[in-house]
């Protein structure tokens, strides 16, 4: 038996890769549901879950990666009976085959739940849940329609909350069954009817208050899902439930946990909008005012600097020139005046002959009042009895007025 060289020799990793390929190309091992009991459950710090799924006779290793177990709504524990969905493949490093789990459902959930999961997967694959096809709701709705029971708490909540938030809103109540076998079809028909006859409706809220899975079932039916998907008017799903979603939630353009929440989410609070508006308005006024002030200040500073550079400065320069010129003129005048004064002095000797003393020498005299030394020129300056002095060439005579007499010449 020495002919091993003639047959092919594989490396271990090649072999495991080959086996892995076999598993992954086998349709029977992909996307399958397995029923079993969890044991040896471990949640690794990486977020991945490792456990063993077993029944009475057998067991299989399972791994559920973090990306898949993120949506789990319960923490698996040992001994829990579950249905898991996943692919069987090979962990090449150890040469072990295992189940790569994508979803875990508690086994007690029953047929409805599985039907729900199947429909959900189907519609998701068709793209009905895709974010790109979701329509945007208007920011300020004016006309809204509500498809629900006209007698339930849901419609009262929607109306009360909507009007509290936006008092002048137009609401069209579209009565419909919301539970029972024909409910899904009826809601779907109402959606189609509104699309056909009411072009000005901003969006439609469909919903009801909370209930059991069976009571909410209408919102998990395909006919309703398709009607929501086909609606040109945006749809808001408002089915009361705490934890699980309905198919309607996934297809709708907006989902909300309760009818009240739907109103809160879709109807803007008019008061805060108005407050916001007046805030913006006062901001604009303030900013505009500040702008004008800045501009005024700029104009002032520009005109200030213009004084140094502009015509005004030229004028000032001329003023200065004029000042200098007039100073020169003044000194010239002063010089001329001094010159003339000098000349006058020189001439003064000649003028001496004209002085009063020369006249007195010739026999004239000067009369002055005592006291005051005021030269008397007219009679009105003196009274009878006024003391006077008469200045003559070599002295003065003190005398008293005896009589006043007008002399006409």
């Amino acid at each position, binding site marked *: 038996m020495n002919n091993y060289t003639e047959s092919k020799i594989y490396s271990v990793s090649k072999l495991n890769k080959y086996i892995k390929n076999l598993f992954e190309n086998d349709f029977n091992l992909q996307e399958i549901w397995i029923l079993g009991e969890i044991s040896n459950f471990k949640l690794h710090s990486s977020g991945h879950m490792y456990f063993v799924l077993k029944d009475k006779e057998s067991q299989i290793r399972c791994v559920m990666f973090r990306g898949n177990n993120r949506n789990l709504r319960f923490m698996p524990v040992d001994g829990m009976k579950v249905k898991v969905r996943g692919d069987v493949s090979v962990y090449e490093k150890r040469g072990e085959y295992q189940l790569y789990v994508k979803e875990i459902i508690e086994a007690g959930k029953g047929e409805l739940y599985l039907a729900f999961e199947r429909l959900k997967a189907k519609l998701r694959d068709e793209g009905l849940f895709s974010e790109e096809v979701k329509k945007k709701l208007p920011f300020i709705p004016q*006309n809204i329609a509500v498809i629900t029971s*006209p007698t339930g708490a849901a419609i*009262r909540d929607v109306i009360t909350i909507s009007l509290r938030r936006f008092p*002048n809103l137009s609401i069209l*109540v579209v*009565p419909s069954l919301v539970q029972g076998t024909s409910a899904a079809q009826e809601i779907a028909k109402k959606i189609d009817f509104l699309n056909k006859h009411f072009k000005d409706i901003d969006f439609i809220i469909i919903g009801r208050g909370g209930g059991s899975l069976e009571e909410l079932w209408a919102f998990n039916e395909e006919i309703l899902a398709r009607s929501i998907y086909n609606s040109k008017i945006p749809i808001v799903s408002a089915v009361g439930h705490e934890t699980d979603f309905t198919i309607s939630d996934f297809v709708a353009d907006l989902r909300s946990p309760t009818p009240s929440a739907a109103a809160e989410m879709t109807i803007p609070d008019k008061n805060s909008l108005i407050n916001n508006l007046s805030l913006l308005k006062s901001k*604009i006024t303030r900013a505009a005012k500040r702008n*004008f002030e800045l*501009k005024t200040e700029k104009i002032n500073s520009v005109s200030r600097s213009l004084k140094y550079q502009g015509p005004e400065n030229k004028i000032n320069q001329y003023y200065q020139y004029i000042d200098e010129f007039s100073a020169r003129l003044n000194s010239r005048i002063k010089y001329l005046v001094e010159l003339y004064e000098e000349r006058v002095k020189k001439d003064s000797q000649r003028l001496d002959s004209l002085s009063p003393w020369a006249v007195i020498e010739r026999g004239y005299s000067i009369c002055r009042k005592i006291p005051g030394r005021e030269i008397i020129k007219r009679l009105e300056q003196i009274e009878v009895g006024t003391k006077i002095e008469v200045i003559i060439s070599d002295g003065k005579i003190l005398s008293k007025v005896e009589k006043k007499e007008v002399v006409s010449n």
Partner: protein
Amino acid sequence: MKNKKKVEDIPFEEYLRKLEKIVNQLEEGELTLDESVKTYEEGMNISKICLEKLNKTKKKIEQLVIEGEEKYSTKPFSEKKGENTINEF
């Protein structure tokens, strides 16, 4: 509005965005005096439009009565429990 679109066709939120832009423009203070007067007036005009948009609708609560494939009517909806009879039931 330089925009060719009609005031009714421009959504509230677009006007709100414009208003915020105007606030920014004015607060930056880069506008000329003429521009800031114009911008201020536009801002006041837009805030008026916004308010009009908020007050445009009238409060109305009606109930749809479907009378056939193509036929329907509306009647006032009373919020009192049990007062409404539903034709379809």
